[in-house]
């Protein structure tokens, strides 16, 4: 089944973090996943976590511009969730022979391997930022995540001018890079 133009539009919306589109995707797909997880030894919390992880995996795929979905979004999300949940059940040492709701699935193993790599990098960056401490963490988040300019950051953090804030930012940045690459190299 080829993705229709409507589905491509949904993917584009997801890639640009459009909350209306994400809500639509959420509404159309969550209850199927919830039913699947609940029927397979999971709880509501599990369903939420697995579903959100699948959405992130799809987001990562949608981000790389060359990506063309070869099936319906619904099928993709279901396949990813199914794979993720079976893996989780196996880790818990619990019975893992899924009750299928006659939904078709596609092979998503390669995509999930990619996603696991992204996820590991995310966790390393998260840990590095957390162990950085304040005000470094907020300063760098302000600059790189919220994309504030140096002038705004200086006044927000109470530096006398943008240059001082910039110096501080580079000091913090060097520490962050050190922390990040210390673990990231091992991970690769």
């Amino acid at each position, binding site marked *: 089944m080829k993705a229709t133009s409507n589905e491509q539009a949904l993917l584009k919306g997801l890639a640009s*973090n459009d*909350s209306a589109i*994400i*809500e639509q995707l*959420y*509404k*159309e*797909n*969550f*209850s*199927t996943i*919830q*039913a*699947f997880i*609940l*029927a397979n*030894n*999971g*709880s*509501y*919390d*599990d369903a*939420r976590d697995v579903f*959100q992880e699948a*959405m*992130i995996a799809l*987001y*990562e795929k949608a*981000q790389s511009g060359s990506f063309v979905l070869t099936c319906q979004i619904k099928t993709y999300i279901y396949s990813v969730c199914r794979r993720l949940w079976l893996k989780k059940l196996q880790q818990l040492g*619990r*019975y893992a022979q899924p009750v299928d*709701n006659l939904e078709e699935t596609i092979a998503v193993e390669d995509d999930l391997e990619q996603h696991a790599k*992204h996820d590991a*990098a*995310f966790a390393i*960056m*998260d840990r590095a930022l957390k162990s950085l401490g304040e005000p470094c963490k907020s300063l760098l988040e302000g600059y*790189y*995540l919220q994309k504030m300019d140096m002038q705004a950051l200086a006044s927000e953090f109470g530096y006398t001018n943008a240059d001082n804030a*910039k*110096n501080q930012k*580079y*000091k913090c*940045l*060097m520490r962050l*890079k050190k922390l*990040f*690459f210390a673990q*990231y190299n091992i991970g690769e």
Partner: protein
Amino acid sequence: MEDFLLLETIEKYLSNQMDAQEKAAFELVRKNTPEIDQMVVEHAMFLQQINEYSAIKSIKQTLTQTHQNLLERGEISNSENVSSSAKIVQLFHKYKRVASIAASIGGVIALFISGLALYLSPVSHSNQIQQLSNDIAAIKKSQQYQGKLINEVKSKLPAGVKFISGGSGFLIDAKGFIVTNAHVIKGTGTIVVDNTGKEYVAEIALLDKEKDLAILKINDADFTSKKSLPYSIRKSTTDLGEEIFTLGYPRNEIVYGTGYLSARSGYEGDSLSYQLQMSANPGNSGAPVFDNAGEVIGVLSTREAQLEGVVFALKSNNIYKVVNDYNASNDGGKDIKISTRSNISRMSRKNQIATLESCVYYVKSFDK
């Protein structure tokens, strides 16, 4: 200081903020100095990573927010019992009218036939299942022991009270919150007895007759709350065949029993319960059912009267439901927090029991 400048230059270069002349000069430096070239590559990679981090972080926020919004508007459900998938919902909407007409015709016929059957059939046997609470007035315990207990109790309770029911219960929060069956609590007041025979006055914090669960709160100056509980309470369901064990008070002393989970539903398909294969006696009501890892999977409640060893236990996720009810209705007081970590999973069974023993209580209910 030089490092900062270098980093700043690299960042400027990577974000295309240099003018042509500057850029050419820098590219020459880069070409001639391998170290700087390497730093540029490394920093480009780092910037890509932090941008990815930033993007995923914001999508995570959007997802959490969306989930919350949809939940508030009731467009998704947080129930544990959703069995319909989106497809089924669509079918349901499509055929709602036809189905409701068919159902009402069916309903009328069913009522008529069952009425007829009821009218024609002989009187059915009552009491197919039996609650496992102790009817203390009916069961004569040894005179000596009872005498000893009553003496002890007198110091804590108003005179002239009469015990009318009893069972087991277990801690769900180290602060002194105990869960038991609602049918264990037939009176208006309760006391609980621990495995060493010490008694504590407890108040009834919540009684949910529909789920057959009650929450008691130990309200006694003699009670010292534990630091934390050794076991957790399972939220999800349990697999068929899981080996289980229980600790309860069918007599005045704590008693251990084992068995296995034999069906995913309880008496006549009751989806709130499991069926277990184990022996249980009056007094076991309200006792915790543990799996091998020492996680609570249910609350022992009833048994089939005619069949030996067929016992029913309420599923542990019901505990979360009554605790949520309690926390919602409880303003000002301390909320119940259920521990989600079991730290006895690797112990031998004997050590598990030794650890768990002090968390299981003999619950007695009295009336004035």
